[in-house]
């Protein structure tokens, strides 16, 4: 493959980029050395971007024969000690779940991107958020957790992708970027960092013994029950550490807020528009926006002001994250839900109507 002149966008200044492409660039700047993917809408710009850019960086881009193969190529490359990523959209992510479980079990760092679309089954190619359960509650078999990020802007997508590589290496654990078709397809200005990624030592990797050490083994098999339980206890201790250290969220609760909305990803942007409309009508509404979906920001739900009468969760799903909201609130406040499915998204006016219901002000009464 001939190496061409770099087409990398400049760092440190705003450039207008599509979410999927900005994500690819962020990965490269995070030191991603290999990308294994398979085409599926609405994420296909990401592998196409990597196909163009990786050779410029002496990195590897390979279109795999399937999502199964792609995630297992990730396993191999991660096991060989390099920063590696794969991406897909909902149906393809279902196919990757076996591999993700192995990656978690073998304690390999890797970044997996899901640009979600409507489901179930083949569903549609339009945006969705109905893979929340799959992403945050396990996905594949066995007791494991992924750190899952739900970015809302292209800049956040970039920042969280870079963070994802660092977190993956820190814990030797797969990390998922959970975006949706809107975020992948939209363009926004984004500023890339200029600093080089830190080199992370991986003495456990299968890089060949090179005469310097004994054999390294990358493995998730423990045939003796006692050994597998001990392995699980070690994994659980790691997940507990991730749970305490890796929570990120945005919380904007104005004084006198009557309702607090909860939404993540692009849905949170729609909710922000609805909250602005509500403010013009004299209704004070807060927003809790989980950025890490696992670990879920339970702490954001303690000490809400007494003025808050109820909570409204908005999702592009039949109601998945709302279960975590209810767990976090533990019955302290009524929780309403508004969701659109199948590739439909909530629009600000409809969210406003739901806010009014949650505030006990039926539509039209508030003025």
């Amino acid at each position: 493959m001939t190496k061409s002149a770099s087409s990398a966008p400049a760092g440190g200044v705003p450039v207008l980029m599509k979410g999927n492409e900005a994500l690819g660039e962020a990965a490269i700047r995070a030191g991603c050395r290999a990308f294994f993917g398979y085409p599926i809408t609405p994420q296909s710009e990401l592998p196409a971007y990597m196909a163009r850019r990786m050779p410029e960086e002496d990195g590897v881009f390979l279109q795999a024969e399937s999502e199964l193969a792609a995630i297992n190529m990730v396993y191999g490359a991660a096991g060989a000690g390099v920063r590696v990523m794969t991406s897909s959209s909902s149906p393809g992510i279902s196919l990757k779940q076996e591999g993700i479980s192995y990656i978690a079990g073998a304690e390999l760092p890797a970044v997996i991107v899901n640009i979600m679309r409507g489901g179930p089954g083949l569903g549609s190619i339009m945006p969705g958020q109905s893979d929340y359960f799959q992403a945050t509650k396990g996905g594949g078999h066995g007791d494991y957790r992924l750190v899952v990020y739900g970015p809302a802007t292209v800049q956040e997508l970039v920042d969280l992708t870079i963070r994802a590589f660092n977190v993956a290496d820190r814990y030797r654990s797969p990390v998922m970027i959970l975006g949706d078709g809107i975020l992948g397809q939209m363009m926004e200005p984004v500023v890339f960092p200029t600093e080089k990624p830190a080199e992370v030592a991986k003495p456990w990797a299968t890089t060949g013994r090179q005469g310097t050490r004994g054999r390294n083994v990358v493995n998730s098999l423990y045939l003796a029950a006692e050994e597998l339980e001990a392995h699980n206890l070690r994994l659980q201790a790691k997940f507990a550490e991730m749970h305490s250290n890796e929570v990120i969220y945005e919380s904007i609760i104005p004084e006198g807020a009557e309702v607090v909305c909860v939404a993540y990803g692009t849905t949170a942007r729609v909710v922000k528009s609805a909250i602005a409309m509500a403010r013009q009508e004299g209704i004070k509404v807060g927003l809790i926006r989980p950025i890490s979906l696992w670990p879920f920001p339970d702490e954001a739900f303690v000490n809400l002001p007494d003025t808050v009468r109820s909570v409204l969760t908005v999702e592009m799903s039949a109601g998945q994250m709302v279960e975590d909201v209810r767990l976090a609130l533990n019955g302290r406040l009524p929780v309403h839900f508004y969701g659109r499915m199948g590739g439909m998204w909530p629009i600000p006016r409809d969210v406003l109507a739901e806010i009014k219901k949650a505030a006990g002000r039926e539509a039209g009464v508030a003025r």
Partner: protein
Amino acid sequence: MSSIVERIPVYEPPKSLSDVSSHYCPGCTHGATHRIVAEVMDELGLTDKAVGIASVGCSVLAYNYFECDMQQAAHGRAPAVATGVKRVRPELVVWTYQGDGDLASIGTNEVIHAALRGEKITVIFINNAIYGMTGGQAAPTTLIGQKTATTPFGRDKSWSGSPIHLSEMLALQEGAAFIARTSTHNPAHLGRTRAAIKRAFQTQLEGKGFSLVEILSTCPTNWGMTPVEALKWVEEQMVPVYPLGIFKDWQADGARSPAAAGAAAKSAKPAEGGK
């Protein structure tokens, strides 16, 4: 065929083979094949620069038996895992060790695409016509009429299809540089197996493309035979169905077209003794 006949060197444990007891059943040929792979690694000096990929099946614990770096892969995915390792660290020698359930059933897609990409990896493919680890179920390689746990009345072609000829299929791929089928049923054939494995690794070392050695092997336990009966069964039942030979060799026919390779595969005859 005579060119691949070599003597088996006698006798010290290969350094690439771990000094541990294996979990394999008595009389199973995995042990001999492991030894051969380790001998070749020793001879070519690969222990320090090889990464082996264990698969799912009886050889799932292969990572305990080889002294090079090892990864354990999901069922059927070893060629994809090997691809991941080789692409990011092309200086390593990457090989997989897979049985026929793993490679020829759940993993056909991965091995075919690795071959057509010309992935510079070496695949050791154990064909013993049955699933061993899970208790003797039918494999794609099971012979017509062969009784297994899931073909209790014998494999019926009209219901379960015919044995898969993976080596012949793979030889059609232009990216495949060395494809051979050998057997383990007597010392002469073990010698040919060793020569084929060595050439497969050399194929990778020379950057020529994908290499695979399909090795007809025994499963006395699940076949319900003594080890000696099992070796005889390989010779008398399997070899006629799975002709031995070299189906693709970049040294001999590197420029041969896929169609010609296919014709050669069809006419490949069981290997005779060396000259």
